[in-house]
């Protein structure tokens, strides 16, 4: 295992900057997730690190070795593709053994490691099957097995779970977490699925339009988003946003709502700010402390959660309430949020004081 360092990396297709001067590192043994919407450049970034695509500038180092001018096979990374990219003409054992054979490992060792890897991933009984005879989950396991059998310095995962159905995805997510703990591997993992990012990552890098929006631990990304993009992208349902102004008394006002945000921010009174509050941070309130009042539009009852969509002064708000809450469409309700749960953004960037 080794660390990975990316410095001032960029990639242009013609005039379009796909990746714009990115720098970050992944510590030895760290599970780092690159999270972003489709087209944000995350897969391109991963492919550049693997050597499958050229960069337009910058450097990549694995351990203390600079690798960005090396061929993919010389970088000692493993890559798990979204489509698995198994070798269709080889059976599971041959797929697993492929990289070891290329390196001329002794036959005895290859057999031992194939068996070992198959055991870790529960592929024991499938070694003589061809990829076409496997289910999606099994193919996924073979793809992961092909990566771990090599004991590479860095693992690169490109949306490895996105071709699986929801139940299998959750199961494989857990397995990947276990695998990471067991192997202590350095992993860079690309996904657009925030549940994967939040559950798997030691560190999340949020990417949008080829730029890093925020780097941080999952909790930090969630509870202290650096800007409106991160705040809106992470979290489901999405954070509620509203533009307004803060007056001299520290009261944020906008159409149909008012929040007490005194002392939360250094933004000057009168300047326009964006207030954000997550659905789970909104709670039912009495008449006096109400921040928003509105009419219930739709209720989504998931059993474990109840999401209330309401309209207030023409804007839509979403609040998560405990499932036992008695509320019906058409009801008039009042909501508020505790001060510590309010996010303020000025010019799109986080403007909530760290102490708040």
């Amino acid at each position, binding site marked *: 295992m080794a660390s990975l360092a990316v410095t001032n990396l960029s990639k242009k297709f013609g005039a379009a900057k796909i990746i714009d001067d990115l720098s970050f590192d992944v510590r030895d043994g760290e599970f780092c997730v690159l999270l972003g919407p489709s087209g944000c450049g995350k897969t391109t970034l991963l492919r550049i690190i*693997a*050597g*499958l695509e050229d960069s337009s500038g910058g450097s990549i180092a694995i351990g203390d070795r600079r690798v960005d001018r090396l*061929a*993919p*096979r010389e*970088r000692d*990374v*493993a*890559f798990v*593709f979204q*489509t*698995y*990219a*198994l*070798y*269709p*003409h080889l059976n599971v054992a041959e797929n697993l053994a*492929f*990289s070891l054979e*290329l*390196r001329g490992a002794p036959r005895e060792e290859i057999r031992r490691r194939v068996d070992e890897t198959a055991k870790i991933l529960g592929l024991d009984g499938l070694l003589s099957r*061809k*990829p*076409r005879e496997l289910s999606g989950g099994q*193919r996924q396991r073979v793809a992961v097995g*092909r990566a771990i059998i*090599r004991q590479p310095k860095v693992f690169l995962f490109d949306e490895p779970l996105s071709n699986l159905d929801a139940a299998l995805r959750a199961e494989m997510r857990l397995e990947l977490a276990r695998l990471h703990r067991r192997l202590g591997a350095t992993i860079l993992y690309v996904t657009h699925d925030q549940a994967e990012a939040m559950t798997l990552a030691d560190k999340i890098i949020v990417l949008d339009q080829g730029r890093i929006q925020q780097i941080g631990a999952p909790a930090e990304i969630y509870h202290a988003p650096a800007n409106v993009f991160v705040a809106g992208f992470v979290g489901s349902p999405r954070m509620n946003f509203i533009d307004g102004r803060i007056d001299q008394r520290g009261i944020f006002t906008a159409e149909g709502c008012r929040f007490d945000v005194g002392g939360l921010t250094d933004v000057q009174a009168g300047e326009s700010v964006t207030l954000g509050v997550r659905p789970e941070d909104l709670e039912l309130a009495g008449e006096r402390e109400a921040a928003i009042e509105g009419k219930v539009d739709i209720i989504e009852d998931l059993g474990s959660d109840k999401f209330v969509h309401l309209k207030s002064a023409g804007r839509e708000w979403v609040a998560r309430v405990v499932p036992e809450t008695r509320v019906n469409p058409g009801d008039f309700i009042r909501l508020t949020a505790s001060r510590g749960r309010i996010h303020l953004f000025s010019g799109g960037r986080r403007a909530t004081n760290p102490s708040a």
Partner: protein
Amino acid sequence: MRPLLRFLAIAAVVVYSLLPFLWFVLASWKSPAQLTAIPPEIVPAFHWGFYRSAVTTYGLLAYIRNSAIVAGATTAVSIAIGALAAYALTRFRSTWLRFYLVVLLCVSMFPQIAVAGPVWRILDALGWLNSYPGIVIAYISFSLPLAIWILATFFKELPYEIEEAALIDGCTRPQALKRIVLPLAAPGIFTAAILVFIYAWNEFFFALIILTSPALQTLPVGIALFPGEYTMPWGELAAASTIATLPLIALTLFFQRRIVRGLSAGAVKG
């Protein structure tokens, strides 16, 4: 009713195509008397004399050997070069792919007669008239574009990620080509090989003008030269034609099975 119509339509096409073939196969087994009998006798006497005289009197075996060498070499060289060219065309500089392929297609559309003169002069200058390399080179000028076209189509269908996985797993480009791309493109390679082989095996015109020495002539030319000034050896012609057709039928049947098997193996996604 519809299946019956379909069967009749297919039967009509098959009979129409196979009738001449059937006619000379039957003719090759007839006795000399049967051959000229009027009215014609359909059922042959299974007389093998024409085969014997085709070999002994007309030197059929030499023609077979020449054809096998020429068609085999043409196929081997076309596929070897064609596979590399098609790989390069489909993997690098994809914007030029269409352009190159269209140019190749145009080249392969030149009528043979248009290039016969230049080809003859070039081979004459090289001293390659009446030689295997001479005829093989002439054939490759037509078979290579064909091979590249077929192979490029197959290579394009292969998911590139499988190859990328191989490159990351430790393959060099040539290794990825050999261990991943070629096995997966096997159906395409067999298809291209069959078509090139059939072309080279049947080719008449270039063989006629390039190979004037009887010792080097291929089957089509050799058979065409069976008739003498005063003789028309129908029986020997039929026997030689039957023999000339057999390898093609055998090859096609043999490769067809591999093509079908290869197709089902390669169709797996990821």
